[in-house]
């Protein structure tokens, strides 16, 4: 994993500097860009393995960059955003970003997220097609529609299973409410977030030891959900 090529898109020179230092210390090869245009050029010429994108860029927003990047690349994208910019963040995730961090963030947190994204993209390349998934003490057989917790079968309603399957497909990524609703209920239901809350609560109660402190089915308030865990 070290030696991976990272594209760092950030307009603030100070942040770029310390991120560059931290990433290089971890053994990543870093390419820096401070504008949207520059970032697209770097992305197409340097063939990075992952991108860290600040949403507030001087010549356009990061969302636009992600949308264009997604048209030809599946590389993981980690978004950096300010706390107020809730909608922008969700829009970036909807456009195809994989994860987000709110400024200010800790460098160890950023590195952990980045590693997780890189690992997942490597796994996805290697193990696509397998229908058996395991996280924590949960085993899911996507083909057989079967879920086991510590070896015991857990009964899920069809909606709950579809929801779980959608989370597994996006394993590690933050899936926005819109993405999950569209995938599970269909495009007409994108606004009914309370559906999601009720069914996610059921899933947590069936699969988590402590539903209020979940280990796998993580809530990203106002944004969406993500499935975590090895």
């Amino acid at each position, binding site marked *: 994993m070290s030696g991976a090529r990272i594209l760092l898109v950030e307009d603030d020179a100070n942040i770029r500097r310390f991120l560059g230092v931290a990433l290089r210390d971890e053994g990543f090869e870093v390419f820096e860009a401070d504008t949207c245009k520059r970032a697209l050029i770097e992305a197409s010429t340097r063939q990075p393995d992952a991108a860290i994108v600040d949403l507030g860029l001087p010549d356009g927003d990061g969302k636009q960059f992600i949308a264009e990047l997604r048209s030809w690349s599946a590389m993981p994208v980690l978004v950096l955003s300010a*706390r107020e910019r809730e909608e922008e963040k969700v829009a970036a995730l909807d456009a195809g970003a994989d994860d987000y961090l709110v400024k200010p963030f800790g460098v160890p947190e950023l590195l952990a997220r980045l590693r997780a994204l890189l690992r997942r993209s490597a796994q996805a390349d290697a193990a696509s097609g397998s229908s058996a998934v395991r996280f924590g003490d949960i085993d899911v057989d996507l083909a057989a529609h079967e879920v086991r917790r510590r070896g015991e079968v857990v009964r899920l309603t069809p909606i709950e299973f579809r929801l779980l399957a959608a989370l597994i497909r996006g394993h590690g990524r933050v899936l926005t409410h819109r993405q999950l609703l569209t995938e599970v209920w269909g495009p007409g239901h994108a606004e009914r977030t309370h559906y999601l809350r009720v069914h996610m609560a059921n899933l*947590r109660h069936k699969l988590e030891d402590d539903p209020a402190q979940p280990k796998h089915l993580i809530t990203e308030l106002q944004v969406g959900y993500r499935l975590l865990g090895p």
Partner: protein
Amino acid sequence: MSATRPDPDRLLAEVKADQQRAARGKLKIFFGACPGVGKTYAMLLSLRRLHDEGGRVLVGVAETHGRNDTAQLLEGLPRLAPRRIEYRGRTLEEFDLDAALAAHPALVAVDELAHANIEGSRHSKRWQDVDELLEAGIDVCTTLNVQHLESLNDVVGRITGIRVHETVPDPVFDNADDVVVVDLPADELLKRLAEGKVYLPDAAALARENFFRKGNLIALRELSLRRAADRVDAQMRDYRRTRFIDTVWPARERLLVGLSGAPGDERLVRHAARLAQKLEADWIAVHVDVAHWRRGKQARRQVAKTLELAAGLGAETVTLPGEEAAEALVGCAREHNANRLLLGHRPRPAWRFWHVSTIDRVSHQHPDIDLVVIALGEPQVRPEQVERPERGIDWLAYLWASVACLAATLVATPLVRVFDLANVVMLFLLTVVLVALRFGRGAGAWAALLAVGCFDFFFVPPRGTLSVGDTQYLFTFALMLGVALIIGQLTARLRHEARVAAAREKRATALARLARELSGALTVEQIVEIALRDFAGFFQSRVGLALPDMANRLGIVPGGDCAVDVSIAQWVFDHDQQAGIGTATLAAAAARYLPLKAPMRVRGVMAMEFADPDLLHEPEAQRLLEACCSQLALALERVHFVEVAQSTLVQIEGERMRNTLLATVSHDLRTPLTTIMGAADAAASRLRGDAAEPLLQSIRQQAGSMLRLVENLLDMARLQTRGARLDRQWQSLEEIVGSALRELRGPLGEHPVHIELPPGLPLLEVDALLIERVLVNLLENAVKHTPPGTAIGISAHLHDDQVTVEVSDAGPGLPELAPGKLFEPFERGRKESAVAGIGLGLALARRIVEAHGGHIEARPRTPHGAVFSFTLPLGQPPEVEAA
């Protein structure tokens, strides 16, 4: 078909009345036939009973008249001290309305509803005091004798020969919630009277023999019982109407009563009121102002008083200008769809044999109108005979008439030699016509007399004497006099009409000017200036204006020249009723206070001191005044809404600026903090094990707490802006708790957390990020103030309409502070402690919870520790289809 449908207007009126009734106090009347039947006793007895049951009762006024049994009842009951008023050198006691309102008991007893208050009281009648008490939601019980009922006043007067002047309008009686008839057979009453148990005021004592005759008492008793029965009957019908609305109800009758302005009208009005009540009809009292120009002030005031009486008895009142009473009345009846016309009949005096009465006219020309004729008995008197219009005699006109006649004589002298005498007469006739045209009837008649004299003296043989040789000249004289009178009459009428038209024109112009000026006014100051100037001019009066402030307290607007009594103005404003001179309320005031009523609400009060107080009895002037007042009110309302719109605009702009500022500040504070924290992190990982590492760690930590402070400050600022918008969605409390715990993973490290959320907790409509801030702040607070290793608990409980969330710890407990103080910004439990933070967290938490309609509090936990709990309202979460 339509006849079977209930009358929607009536149903609506009932719903409205019900709503008003709910907020109003209840009125209970102890009703009797005459003094001495024991009304006060019965009233106090019922009050006593309520008092013993623990009711908050108050005796406002109770006349014991020195009777022991009644006085005994009063013992131990809370009594209101009477208000003492100096009146013409004597100190009189009066019911203290303001003290009763201030005491606000559940029930107040106010004896003698018909009592007239001493001059200088707020209201002229006690029943108005009672009305205000009811309006304030206070129940009232009171007493009333049948003779004091307005509509029966004259009937009782005719039975007993004594007219009382203190009356109560019938609607007060009819709308009372409860009427208790206090009845005593005539014989028993007479016995009590003989035993001296009945108190009589001195004046009435003189009439005792007349009044307390057995026949009278029986008649009064019957009258009161029948009136009470009528009321019960009306209630019964009301009940039926509300219960069986599908039964057939006839369309409501409408009654029109024509008032001529002559004495006797009052009887007609009372009669009409009784008839209307029996027929359950709406009624309209109409006065046709036929001979306005011939009428004196006294007569006009009389008309106004009669109309006021009619209004008090529940009529709609109309004054119509018109030349012919019959036509105007019938027109009005058709316009209001009234099917009955009530007219008074007076015997026609013999000298008016040629006069066709209004009754005859209506019955001949409009046979389709139901005519009800009431015999009034009193012979008709010409208004001119009652009172001469007080117009000074214009001596100048007579002088000119004399001069004209002299001139005609001089001109005629040479002509008589050429012309025949018949033509000379023509010259005199022309003179008379011209004088009558120019100077009116009186001068015309004078000119006719003079002309006849001159003609006779100088031209009719034998000349130089007033004797007449030929009788045919007598005919000439009569003709001349007749022509002068007719021309004079016509001229007078013509002039009057011109004057009326001119006055109307003037008023219309005045109103138009006021409207134009007001429409151009953009500020309250401009409106006030226009109002003060124009009103003073239109009505020859001194004008003052009072306008309400934000708290609806009136303040006098400077610039007026009329002394405004703020307390009266405030009363007028609050009650939306006129007061002051010429009204029933505070009639002793020098000025008339008029509410400026706009469609939405009363916008202010105008005080006017008229140079001629009788102006207010003129229907024309009254109409103009009303029109002007409503114009003014409309203008004030318009400006008010313009101001509201402007301030909203300013507010929106201000909010936009504030939001921009907040966004900028938060960005500019966060970016450097990001760099500081990130750079410290990056450097620390390089210098692992180095002596500098702890330094970098503390940079990192302090930057972190600074960041939290900034976040709290920004949240606080955002919530402090008025009407901060919450992003409320149906959220799961479990997810919010989970998210808060996840954010505090690091700091919470050494504290075990116990979570107890009830199963089946419904979704809550909250702003998830803000509620998360509340939990984060409460948890951080717990972490900060408790030793590592102690447990922290999070639990939720469901109540009827809210959910309570508790965060508890097992630390040292709460500091000794006034309750609620803990949640004040910048209040820290222990001064100068080493624990970071400036106590914004709890203040922010409170603000957020309160913005959600909840409540936050802290209490000590047993055996030790603290519990912070907040409530959130439960709503109706949307349905989720099971799948």
